[in-house]
C-alpha cells in the first residue's frame, strides 16, 4: 500500500511538472531512438492458445510468437507457400486405397524461447534446470492431439477430421476421462499417450512427421501455415495451468517464433521482444527462407522499395521490440497515428475524405511522406437468413425464397459503402472474394443489386403485398440479430432497417453483445443476422464451406449459421473440396454459386477493401491480406521518426495566454475598486 501511495505522490509531482513542460508524446523519451514498432489493439485477445485462437486480435500476437511449419512468401502473389520450421514443403504420397499421406521434416536444432516451464523437462548438462529445449516432431503431433481434445475446445477440429483416427481419438479420450478421475489427474501428454495417440499421425525419429488422410485434401497444407499447427511444448501446457499464481497457457505463449511475449498487461499493453533463441537469430548462416528477407518480387515491389538491396537476403527480424498499446476507440488511435505515435494504421471513415482524395493520398499526406497500401481483403460481409425459421426459412418454401429475394433486392450496397465506408469495398455477388480462385469480376447476381420495383413485386408474389400477409391480414414482422451495441453499429443496422421499410417490411433490430449474439446463434432462435468472414487461406473452399450442411450451426455447432441444407450443394461441395484448381473445379464452383444465387440463404453485401497508411520511417511495407500479420520483415528508421514527431507536435500555446489575459481583465476592476475603497 505504501508503494502505491508513493507512486501516486510521484504521479502528482509529475503532473505538476508536466503542466509546465507539456508534450503529447505517450512514450518515455528514452525509447524514441530505439527500433520499437508501435501499434494498437482494442481488446485483449480472449485466448493466445494456438489451438484455440481464431480471431484477428489473437493472430496479431500468435502469428509472431508461434512459427508454423510452412509460411507464405512475403512478396509473391498469388500466395506461395515456403518452408518455415519444416525443411521443405511436405511430400505427398497417394496409396492405392485412395488415402493420402503427407510427410513433413522439421529442421534440426530449433529451440523454444527461454522459459521456466522447461524445468519440467529435466536438468541441463550444467546441473541447472533447463530453460529451453529442442523442437521435435512429437511437439507438432502433441498440438494436433490438443486440437482433437474436446477439453481444449478448438474451433477447427472438423478441418483436421480428415486425419485418420483423429475423431476416434477424441472419443477415446473423452471416455477415459469420464471413466476415471485418476486419469484426469495425469499430465495431459500422458493422457494422450494412454488414449493411444492418433493412428493417422506418425512420428519418425526426432524430426519426421507423417500424416495419413482418409481422403485427398488439397487445402490441408494451408492449415500448416497457420498458428494452429505450430509445435507446442507439453511442459508449457502442464506448467501454465492458472494455479498458484502461474498464468494460464492461453495467456502465456511459449513458442518458436521470431518474437516472444515479454509483457502482457491486458488492459494496457502487449510487448513482444526479439526471441534470442529463434533459428533465424542463432543461425543466420542457414539462410532459411522463413528467416531471410526475400530476394524475389514483382516489378511493383521493386518500385515500392520492397527489394532494397540493404535488406534482400539479410537475416530477419529487423525490429527489436513490438508494442501493442490498448486503444479502445478508433479515433484517438488514428489521431495518434497522425501525430506519429503509431507506425501504421488503417483509415477511419471519419477522416477518410481528408486523407484520400480522388482515390489517391491527399497532398497534405504526401507532403508528410505517408504511404498508402490498398488491397481487397479476402473477406465477405453478409446478412444471413436462418433457414430453420418458419417465415424466412426453407420451411416457407417458395414463399420464403421470394421473400428472401425481395429483401436482397431492397438493399443498396453501393450506397451503404458510400455512407459508412467512404466507398471502400467491392459489392459482393457471391461469397467468393476477389483474388481467390473462382471469383468472377463480371458475374452479376440477378437477385441482388438494388431494384425496388422488382423487390415489391417479389414481395407481393410471396404473399406479402406492401408487407401485409394476404392470408392473415397481419403485417409481416421480422427480427434482425446483431452482435454489437455500439452507437456506430446501430446506425449501420438502421440503414438496413430503412431499406426494408421502403418495400414495407417491418424489421426490428435486436442488438446484443457479441457473446450473447453467438449464444442466440447456437440456440437457433433468430431470423436474420449480420456477420462477416475473413479468409484463413487463399482457397474458395474456405468460403463455400460456410453453407455446407454438415457444418450447420444447429446440427454441429459449425460456421454455417444459416443452417442451410441443400443436397445438391453438398454433393458439389464434396467434389470441389477434393479437386485441384482447374476448369473442372471452376465449373463446379459456378454451379454452387448458381444454387445459392436463387436460394438466397445469404444477402452477400461486400468484400472489404483495406487501406493501410504507413509513415515514411517504416520500411518494407506490404499488406498481407490474410487474417494474421507478419512483422518480422518490417524495419524502422528511429532517427527520422523522432525528428518528424517533434516537427508535427509543437503545442499551440497562445489560447492559454489569451485566456489568462481575459481573466485578468475580468477580475482587475473588482480588485482595483476594493483597494481604492480601503484607502
Amino acid at each position, binding site marked *: 500500500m505504501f508503494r502505491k501511495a508513493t507512486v501516486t505522490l510521484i504521479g502528482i509531482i509529475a503532473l505538476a511538472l508536466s503542466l509546465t513542460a507539456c508534450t503529447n508524446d505517450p512514450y518515455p523519451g528514452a525509447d524514441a531512438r530505439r527500433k520499437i514498432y508501435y501499434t494498437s489493439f482494442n481488446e485483449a485477445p480472449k485466448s493466445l492458445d494456438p489451438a484455440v485462437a481464431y480471431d484477428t486480435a489473437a493472430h496479431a500476437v500468435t502469428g509472431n510468437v508461434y512459427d508454423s511449419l510452412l509460411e507464405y512468401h512475403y512478396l509473391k502473389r498469388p500466395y506461395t507457400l515456403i518452408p518455415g520450421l519444416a525443411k521443405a514443403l511436405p511430400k505427398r504420397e497417394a496409396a492405392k486405397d485412395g488415402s493420402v499421406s503427407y510427410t513433413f521434416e522439421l529442421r534440426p536444432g530449433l529451440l523454444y524461447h527461454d522459459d521456466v516451464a522447461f524445468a519440467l523437462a529435466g536438468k541441463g548438462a550444467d546441473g541447472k534446470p533447463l530453460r529451453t529445449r529442442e523442437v521435435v516432431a512429437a511437439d507438432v503431433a502433441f498440438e494436433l492431439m490438443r486440437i482433437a481434445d474436446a477439453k481444449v475446445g478448438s474451433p477447427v477440429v472438423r478441418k483436421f477430421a480428415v486425419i485418420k483416427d483423429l475423431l476416434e481419438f477424441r472419443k477415446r479420450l473423452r471416455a477415459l476421462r469420464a471413466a476415471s478421475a485418476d486419469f484426469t489427474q495425469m499430465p495431459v501428454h500422458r493422457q494422450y499417450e494412454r488414449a493411444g495417440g492418433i493412428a493417422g499421425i506418425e512420428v519418425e525419429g526426432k524430426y519426421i512427421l507423417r500424416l495419413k488422410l482418409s481422403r485427398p485434401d488439397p487445402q490441408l497444407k494451408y492449415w500448416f501455415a497457420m498458428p494452429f499447427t505450430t509445435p507446442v511444448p507439453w511442459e508449457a501446457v502442464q506448467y501454465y495451468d492458472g494455479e498458484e499464481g502461474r498464468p494460464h497457457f492461453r495467456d502465456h505463449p511459449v513458442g518458436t517464433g521470431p518474437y516472444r511475449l515479454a509483457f502482457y498487461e491486458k488492459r494496457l499493453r502487449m510487448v513482444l521482444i526479439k526471441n534470442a533463441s529463434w533459428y533465424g537469430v542463432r543461425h543466420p548462416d542457414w539462410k532459411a527462407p522463413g528467416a531471410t528477407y526475400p530476394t524475389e518480387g514483382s516489378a511493383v515491389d521493386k518500385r515500392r522499395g520492397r527489394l532494397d538491396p540493404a535488406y534482400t537476403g539479410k537475416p530477419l527480424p529487423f525490429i527489436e521490440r513490438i508494442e501493442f498499446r490498448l486503444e479502445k476507440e478508433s479515433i484517438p488511435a488514428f489521431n495518434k497515428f497522425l501525430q506519429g505515435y503509431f507506425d501504421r494504421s488503417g483509415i477511419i471513415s471519419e477522416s477518410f475524405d481528408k486523407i484520400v482524395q480522388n482515390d489517391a493520398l491527399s497532398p497534405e499526406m504526401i507532403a508528410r511522406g505517408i504511404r498508402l497500401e490498398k488491397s481487397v481483403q479476402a473477406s465477405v460481409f453478409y446478412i444471413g437468413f436462418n433457414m430453420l425459421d418458419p417465415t424466412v426459412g426453407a420451411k416457407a418454401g417458395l414463399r420464403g425464397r421470394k421473400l428472401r429475394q425481395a429483401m436482397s433486392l431492397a438493399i443498396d450496397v453501393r*450506397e451503404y459503402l458510400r455512407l459508412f465506408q467512404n466507398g471502400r469495398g467491392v459489392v459482393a455477388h457471391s461469397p467468393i472474394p476477389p483474388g481467390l480462385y473462382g471469383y468472377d469480376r463480371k458475374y452479376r447476381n440477378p437477385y441482388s443489386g438494388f431494384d425496388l420495383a422488382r423487390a415489391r413485386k417479389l414481395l407481393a408474389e410471396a404473399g406479402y403485398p406492401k408487407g401485409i400477409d394476404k392470408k392473415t391480414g397481419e*403485417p409481416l414482422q421480422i427480427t434482425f440479430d446483431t452482435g454489437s451495441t455500439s452507437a456506430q453499429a446501430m446506425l449501420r443496422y438502421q440503414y438496413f432497417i430503412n431499406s426494408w421499410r421502403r418495400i414495407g417490411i417491418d424489421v426490428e433490430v435486436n442488438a446484443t453483445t457479441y457473446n450473447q449474439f453467438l449464444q442466440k446463434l447456437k440456440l437457433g432462435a433468430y431470423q436474420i443476422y449480420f456477420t462477416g468472414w475473413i479468409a484463413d487461406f487463399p482457397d474458395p473452399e474456405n468460403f463455400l464451406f460456410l453453407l455446407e450442411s454438415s457444418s450447420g450451426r444447429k446440427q454441429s455447432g459449425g460456421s454455417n449459421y444459416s443452417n442451410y441444407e441443400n443436397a445438391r450443394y453438398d454433393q458439389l461441395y464434396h467434389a470441389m473440396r477434393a479437386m485441384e484448381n482447374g476448369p473442372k473445379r471452376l465449373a463446379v464452383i459456378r454451379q454452387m454459386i448458381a444454387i445459392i444465387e436463387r436460394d438466397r440463404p445469404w444477402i452477400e453485401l461486400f468484400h472489404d477493401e483495406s487501406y493501410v497508411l504507413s509513415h515514411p520511417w517504416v520500411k518494407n511495407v506490404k499488406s498481407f491480406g490474410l487474417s494474421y500479420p507478419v512483422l518480422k520483415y518490417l524495419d524502422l528508421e528511429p532517427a527520422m521518426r523522432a525528428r518528424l514527431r517533434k516537427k508535427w507536435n509543437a503545442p499551440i500555446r497562445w489560447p492559454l495566454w489569451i485566456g489568462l489575459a481575459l481573466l485578468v481583465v475580468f477580475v482587475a476592476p473588482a480588485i482595483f475598486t476594493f483597494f481604492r475603497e480601503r484607502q
Partner: protein
Amino acid sequence: MSWVSNIIVALLVAGGAYVWIWARSNRLWREAMRALVRRRRFALIILGVYVLIGLLDAVSWVGGDGVQGVAASEARSVIDRIFKPSIFREKSYSEPFAQVEFVGGAALTFPGQHVLGTDILGDDVLYKTLKGVKVALLIGGLTCLVLIPLALLFGVSAGYFGGKIDDAVFFVMSTLASIPNLLLLIALIMALGKGTLQVCFALGITGWVGLSRLTRAETLKLRELEYVQAARALGVSHPTIVMRHILPNLAHLVIITFALLFTGLVLSETILAYLGIGLDGSWGRMIDQARNELSRDPVIWWNIVAASSALFILVLCVNLIADALRDILDPRTLRERP
C-alpha cells in the same frame, strides 16, 4: 400499444388541469405560482414548449394518411405526422438549410428545408431532436413516478410511526445509500436488463433515498406540531392524519426535489448512453453517436450541437426553475446539496 401512451397523455393532461385548479384555489400556492412566473417567466415558457412537444409525440394512432414507406402496423405520433420522416429525408449528411448533399454535392430532395440538417442516414436532425424530448421527459417523469411514492411511503411512515419502523427504514436507506450511485444503477440495469422501464425503475431505486431522508426528517417535525397532536388525541385515524396534515405539508419538498432530481436524471442518462445501457432515441444516444463526427474533416457539428443544446436548454430551464422554487417555497430547510 399506442393506446397506452394515449391514455397516459389524457391522464397527465387531466391531472395537470386538476392540480392547476386546486393550486389556484389555495392562497399560498397561488402566491408561490405568481412569484415563480414573475421570476422565471422565460424558463417556464420554454419548459412549457418542451412539455407540449413531448405530449404531441406521445399521442399516436395507426394508419391514416397513406404515407409511403411506412410499415403498415406502425402507430405514428403527431410529430411523426408533421415531419413524415419516411419521405422527408435525404440520402446522407446535409448541412442546415443546405441545397446539396454534404459529401459529394448531389442535389437534395428537399433543398433548404432541413432546418438542422440531416444525419448520416439522411434523417432530419430537427425531427430526431424533437423525438428526444419525449424520451427525456420520460426519464425524468417515469422515474419520479417510481421514486416519489416510494420515498414518501418510507419517509413518512418512518417519521410518523417512529420506533421499529423507523429503525427498519433507516437501515434500508443506509444500505442503499452506501452503494455508490452509479454502481448501483449499473448493477440494477445489468440484472434487470436494458429497456425504458428497467432503466427508469433502476434510476428510481437509486434516487429515492435522498427524498426519503428529507421527508422523514420533515415528518418528524410535523408530527410534533400541536394540531397534529390534537388530531391524534381526538382519535383521528392515522391514514387521515397523514393525508390531511402530513402530505400537504411535504408537497413543497417533493416539488423542489423533483425539479432537482429531474436534471440529475436526464444528465445521468447520457452517461448510461455512453456505457451502452441508455434508452433508444435519447439525446444521450444522439450525442454518443455524433461524438465521432467531430473528428470528421470537414467537421459535422449539427448533430451533436442539436442534441446537446436541446439537452442543455431543458436542464438549464429546470435548474433555474428549481432554484427559484427553492427560494420561494423553502428558503431554509433545503440548502444546496452536493
